[in-house]
């Protein structure tokens, strides 16, 4: 087996209006969230596929990834914390965060969690420029 491939990329966290809207929203509740997100994106920039337990989302042809973001304001590491979804544009080798949401620590409310995430995302799509 050869050495693992390192996949460095650029990160543009200002381009997505939905992400910008959500980051501003969560900053009011979690003052350190911007630093926490920056730390995650810094890792993702160095190797975007495995960083922070990243997983490719199903049915997006390996272009959309989900990352774990610790939340310093919650103080419990990445359990709980936030999840950040980013789109990787192969043509420009750039990762664009597009969505983030707080992760519930409860393991038995998955359906409700999808509904909650969808509501957050639709709100961000409606309210962002």
């Amino acid at each position, binding site marked *: 087996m050869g050495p693992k491939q390192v996949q460095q990329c650029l990160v543009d966290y200002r381009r*997505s209006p939905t992400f910008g809207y959500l980051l501003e929203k969560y900053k009011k509740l979690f003052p350190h969230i911007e630093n926490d997100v920056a730390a995650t994106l810094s890792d993702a920039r160095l190797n975007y596929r495995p960083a922070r337990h990243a997983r490719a989302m*199903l049915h997006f042809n390996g272009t959309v990834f989900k990352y774990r973001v610790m939340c310093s304001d919650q103080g419990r590491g990445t359990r709980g914390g936030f999840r950040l979804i980013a789109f990787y544009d192969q043509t420009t080798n750039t990762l664009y965060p597009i969505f983030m949401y707080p992760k519930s620590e409860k393991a038995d409310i998955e359906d409700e969690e999808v509904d909650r995430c969808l509501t957050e995302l639709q709100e961000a*799509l409606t309210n962002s420029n």
Partner: protein
Amino acid sequence: MTAACITFEQIEDRTDNSLVLAIWAKRASETALAAVVGNMFLAILSANLKGLHGVLTTEALEKFSPDQLKELSVKLKELMPRFTRLCSEIESSDMKKILLQNLVSSVSESTEDLDSVLENINFSLRPDFQDAISSAIDRLRLGAEASATVPR
């Protein structure tokens, strides 16, 4: 066996094995010999969970039908609370925590990894969520080439 060629039945078997191991590990951790027996079961459970997570790659999951994904989602939903409870119960006992800490951390980490898999499956089963993600990508206004790579 590579993750790419694993069948749905093989994943079901691994999930069922993990469930049985979780039950045994919980029982073992409640006995007076928790340090010995609990260690053994937790070590097997930990290896089993890592193996299960290892085969549940996005590429492997994308080969399954929506019905199979729903079935897998139900199985994982049944598993997750058991692992979470097992880890919290051990961590709430000072003695067990000291004796089983490393293995509990490993099981806890694998549980979180599997929780992420379960969440991805649930997202994939919701076309409205997928559409919303596609809309968020379109809002990047990267041009037709980038948008065309998106979904289903």
